[in-house]
């Protein structure tokens, strides 16, 4: 992977086919998880947290009015990421991926959702918690941090 950089219009990185396919797969898994959320799934609760920590009634009401829309937007963000990686996924060598501002906004949110979900599955709960060295998801978790950091830094230049 070559990190994201700011271009005259939008942002550009390069992904190997297996890297692009991995991210597409992860967005699909998040989409499936949000489409049929398992009761009490910690990852879903982290993506759609209680808005009122000490008022269960108000929290339930907020959830009733916002959760569906939030979940839909998260699924759409994932689909935007997958679409922008379609060419790189089908390629046989590293391929440039170009994003406009709107796609970049979907990317930073979708990567955050993926990393939050991985962290929930790996039990990362405190600042000094680290994934086990032999945990493949841990490597993906760190790599996605690198991907997101490079995009965020590029986007900061436009604020």
């Amino acid at each position, binding site marked *: 992977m070559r990190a994201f950089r700011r271009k005259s219009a939008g942002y550009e990185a390069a992904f190997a086919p297996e890297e692009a396919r991995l991210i597409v797969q992860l967005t699909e898994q998040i989409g499936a998880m949000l489409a049929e959320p398992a009761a009490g799934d910690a990852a879903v609760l*982290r*993506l*759609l*947290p*209680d*808005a*009122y*920590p*000490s*008022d269960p009634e108000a929290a339930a009401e*907020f959830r009733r009015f*916002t959760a569906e829309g*939030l979940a839909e*937007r*998260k699924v759409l963000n994932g689909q935007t990421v997958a679409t922008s990686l379609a060419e790189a996924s089908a390629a046989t060598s590293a391929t440039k991926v170009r994003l406009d501002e709107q796609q970049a906004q979907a990317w*930073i*949110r979708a990567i*955050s*959702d993926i*990393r*939050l979900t991985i*962290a929930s599955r790996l039990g*990362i*709960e*405190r*600042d*000094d*918690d680290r994934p086990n060295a032999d945990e493949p998801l841990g490597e993906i978790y760190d790599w996605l*941090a690198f991907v*997101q*950091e490079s995009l*965020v*830094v590029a*986007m*900061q230049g436009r*604020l």
Partner: protein
Amino acid sequence: MSMPDLLEATEHDVDLREQTVLGSPWVTIVWNDPVNLMSYVSYVFRSYFGFSQREADRRMMQVHSAGRAVVATGPREEMERHVEAMHDFGLWATLQKADE
């Protein structure tokens, strides 16, 4: 300054006072999590709330070291919109009365 401007400014002041006296304000709080990157949290604060780089970094560091930071104060409906927007970004945000 022309007269209409003066009148506008006065009305605005009255609005602010009414809000402070009649409705107890609410706050939007962003909580620390071990996942989201410091650069990302700062970017969200800058791009969404319009904070300067320095102010965004200050509140991000407050989240990081104190565990939470107030990022907005105002009417309940407005704070609910902010909380929803933070959840969109994957940030852990809640709202409560300012004096809670």
